């Protein structure tokens, strides 16, 4: 399971960075989303992976760390709000600048 999660995080992050470097707003938004998925899984895994364990210390032999789950929850909420914001901003930029490039103009085009 560890290997699977690690490969998944790596794939998501790599894809996220690749899309982020595309420098067009739509791929950039997707890239940021994939990056935040990757980091959320990463945070989740930082409490170690265990199955069927309660997140509290009780009579059972083991327990799973509840803190990363709280962190992931916070990160998801913040990431969600940021994604919504950046989508609105990307639409605004497309409308105002007439280009979906993050520089606001096509590569090679001369401008201020």
């Amino acid at each position, binding site marked *: 399971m560890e290997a699977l999660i690690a490969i998944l995080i790596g794939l998501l992050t790599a894809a996220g960075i690749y899309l*982020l470097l595309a420098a067009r*707003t739509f791929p*950039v938004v997707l890239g*940021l989303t994939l*990056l*935040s998925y*990757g*980091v*959320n899984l*990463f*945070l989740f*895994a*930082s*409490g*170690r992976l265990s199955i069927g364990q309660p997140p509290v210390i009780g009579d059972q032999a083991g327990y799973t760390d509840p*803190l*990363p789950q709280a*962190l992931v929850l*916070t*990160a998801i909420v*913040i990431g969600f*709000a*940021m994604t919504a*914001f*950046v989508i609105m*901003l*990307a639409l*605004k*930029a497309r409308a*105002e*600048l007439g280009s979906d490039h*993050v*520089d*606001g103009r096509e590569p090679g085009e001369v401008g*201020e």
Partner: protein
Amino acid sequence: MSAPSLAWIMAPLLIPLGTAILMLLLGPLMRLKARRAFSLLAVLAQLSAALWLLALVAQGDILVQALGDWPAPFGIVLVADRLAVWMLLLTALLALGALASAIEGTDTASRHFHALFQLQLFGLNGAFLTGDLFNLFVFFEVLLLASYGLLLHGGGARRTRAGLQFVVVNLAGSTLFLFAAGTLYGLTGTLNLADLAQRLPSIPPEDLGLVRAGALLLFGVFALKAALFPLHPWLPSSYAATSPAVAALFAIMTKVGVYALLRMQTLLFGPEAGGFAGLYAPWELVLGLVSIALGALGALAARELGLQIGYLVILSVGTLLTAFGLGSAAALSAGLYYLAHSTLAAGAAFLLAGQIAQRRGVLRDRLESGPVLAGAPLLGGLFFLSAVLLAGLPPFSGFLGKWMLLSAALDHPAALGWVLALVLGGGLLAVVALARSGSVLFLSATGSPSRATPPAASSALAPLLWLLALCLGLTLAAGPVSTFTTAIATDLLAPERYIEAVLGLAGGSH
């Protein structure tokens, strides 16, 4: 520590948050004048709270507030030591100038300007007070989200373009922050900074590399926020694109990154940190020196006054991190003095650039000669004063800060040559750049003052005068202030007291 004095530590957080929430709720019902008065009152209240906290910690006490009464390291703690309060005070002083300038007219573009302004202060104050790594991330997000709104405030294609880049860069930075925090938590099992400091020396050798990677990832994140080379290119364009009041407030935003670097460097990676001792300092020194050179060259090449000041902010960040990278008590103290100076001077310069741009009509702040400005003698005088402050020429606070830095560098023979060459050379290039701008803007102007723009009210200069007066105050009170910054530096170099104050609660009455 008695309960009432502990409650004061919450004031710099509750005042802006409460104000922002109230303004979001009641905003549609309030007139512009009421919103302005309310916002101004809130900033004044934060200033008083910061001053009161300063009185409480001036003797070296460290106030610790466990949120929800969960003892550290299990709950989140707020910690007010001398460094945190110094930053709080600086934020409130700068915010007062920025807000007063916004009230002169740029706050009318959106109903939510004042709510965003207060949320930005909430994020800033929180980042300075928190004693928890993840909580620091949350406050970073709060201040960034508010800053996105403030940056875009007023609209326009240029702001949108700069805003988009600023937002994307910072979102990528936030992701890195989470990776770093996750790595550190996974390997040390704590996010409380004091607890982290205690656990780092006993990290098993097989985990050393990974923890180091996490810590340096964190360095990258803070360097991005501080606009340290090579993570600086977002700063000049976004600061030049936004409204002057917001740019002035943003002068403290890079200092959040600088503050975080200083805190981590002294608390987590001090000489007692075993395999982590001195992890940040060499990077800070080298990248700081490169930033000085780059900021100076950028200021020379800039074709707009706003961009030029943006590059001078990078230069000042470089100077600060050079000081912190040296790491001795004298260098830290010089850096903390220069930090206050450079924040206030950059804020004043952005406000002045705004005033100049307003009077030049379509030329804005482009460095091309145009008609004589309305009120040129007064503005020219203020420009001269700001330029002297920014470039760090005698007799003002910038010079004193650099003087302290250079005399502290004398104790570091290995780095002395580079520090001397770059700090002095950077200062010289800044003088050249600013002198050229001044002569283009004021001396080579031709024709009569343009009638197109109505002369601004004289009250428009008041916020600028406030920030300049603070710089002069910093010069006149250099003795007491540098005594205080030396006390901060001594605190920072003895992190045991911080750790004890935070974790001592665990064995207390709770």
